[in-house]
């Protein structure tokens, strides 16, 4: 007799191991199952529903290493009631977790190709797991370029990891800010301006893009201008997800449910929807 599948609507109890502040409004949660054991296997780009008992539940992308069996890692911004309550969690607090849900980044299809990872703001979090995967299996991928844009130098997420990745001789890491402050001597300008100068072969590239929708729209267009085919560009969408399994319709986006058909989409699937006022 086969064991029944776990109910996707029923949260599992997880214990908070650590809450670390990344930048002023952004923090990382490290969680472990209360009963012990490993976290469920996840694919890069998937998300979980995190539930603060008595407050609410929100979707957050997984930003940890997919090869590690624990902890479960999420980075998010404290912007709403639930995420602000999450920021105030303490070690040993218990929260509910459902997931992982949704589609994933095309890391298998990208093998043997050049990789462009383009992230804006907190959009780097869902792409960090891709970086971990590529670094651990470096021989399977061609040139790998990370393009990251932040608002100001103090808003640069995972700064230490970015410096660590930049030190890899086989990774190209470009960071730019929209507004220079202090003694910043790095690049200044929007992230799309990094694309023309990034070293990759557009005919043999898979691009993964995550950030504010407008950023993804312009980044997709700039990648196409450089010669990357639309079907080789992937973006991660964000909508108000509730059930996370395609029942409730809260996250409907044209003919798609972002929770079930996404959050990772081929750019060609959704490009026409990005500028639609009605959606």
């Amino acid at each position, binding site marked *: 007799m086969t064991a029944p599948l776990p109910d996707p609507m029923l949260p599992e109890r997880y214990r908070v191991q650590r809450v670390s502040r990344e930048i002023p*409004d952004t923090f990382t949660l490290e969680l472990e199952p209360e009963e012990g054991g490993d976290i469920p296997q996840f694919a890069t780009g998937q998300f979980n529903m995190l539930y603060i008992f008595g407050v609410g539940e929100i979707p957050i992308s997984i930003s940890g290493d997919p090869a590690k069996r624990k902890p479960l890692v999420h980075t998010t*911004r404290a*912007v*709403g009631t639930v995420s602000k309550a999450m920021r105030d969690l303490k070690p040993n607090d218990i929260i509910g977790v459902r997931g992982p849900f949704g589609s994933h980044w095309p890391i298998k299809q990208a093998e043997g190709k050049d990789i462009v990872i383009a992230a*804006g*703001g*907190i*959009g780097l979090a869902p792409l960090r797991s891709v970086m971990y995967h590529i670094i651990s299996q470096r021989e399977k991928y061609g040139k790998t370029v990370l393009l990251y*844009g*932040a*608002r100001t130098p103090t*808003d640069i997420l995972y700064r230490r990891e970015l410096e660590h990745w930049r030190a890899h001789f086989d990774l190209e890491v470009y960071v*730019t800010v*929209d*507004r*220079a402050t202090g003694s*910043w*001597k*790095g*690049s*200044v*300008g*929007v992230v*799309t*301006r990094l694309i*023309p*100068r990034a070293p990759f072969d557009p005919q043999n590239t898979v691009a993964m893009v995550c*950030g*504010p*929708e*407008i*950023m993804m729209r*312009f980044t997709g267009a700039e990648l196409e201008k450089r010669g990357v085919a639309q079907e080789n560009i992937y973006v991660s969408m*964000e909508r108000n997800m509730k059930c996370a399994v395609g029942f409730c319709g809260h996250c409907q986006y044209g003919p798609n449910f972002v929770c079930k058909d996404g959050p990772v989409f081929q750019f060609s699937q959704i490009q026409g929807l990005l500028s639609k006022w009605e959606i």
Partner: protein
Amino acid sequence: MQTLEPILAEHPFFKGLKPEYLQLVTGCASNVRFNTGTYIFREGDEASQFYLIRHGKVALEIFAAQHGPITIETIEAGEVLGWSWIFPPYRWHFSGHVFEPTRAIALDGKCLRAKGEENHDLGYELMKRVAQIMMDRLQATRLRLLDIYSDLPGGRL
């Protein structure tokens, strides 16, 4: 003697330019390099040249009292530094501060303007290329004006 023509032909700004125009343009070009910390030009100075950046990083700065220099944007390899040479009164709007050792091709603006006046096809070709850069920078500036990473209601824009 090797000329700068092949280097100019490879730079995105002159990519696809007819060989006869490239030859004309090469007569106005020279190789230059700048050390970190130096200023290539200062706001208000005469804009007699522009630069095709080959390597390095130059910041466009504006000086504000009580704030000091503010970086507007950086211009890097493959990009073009300066368009004030083509429009009167031919004065730099910003200062060009070298952030990283920079190698570039300098193009004499007066020389190019004279050649563009003599040969309007070349002048139109140059104007189209400068206009393209201006449009790209305008679009990038508009994106920055949206402040897409700010803490807006609902999180991401």
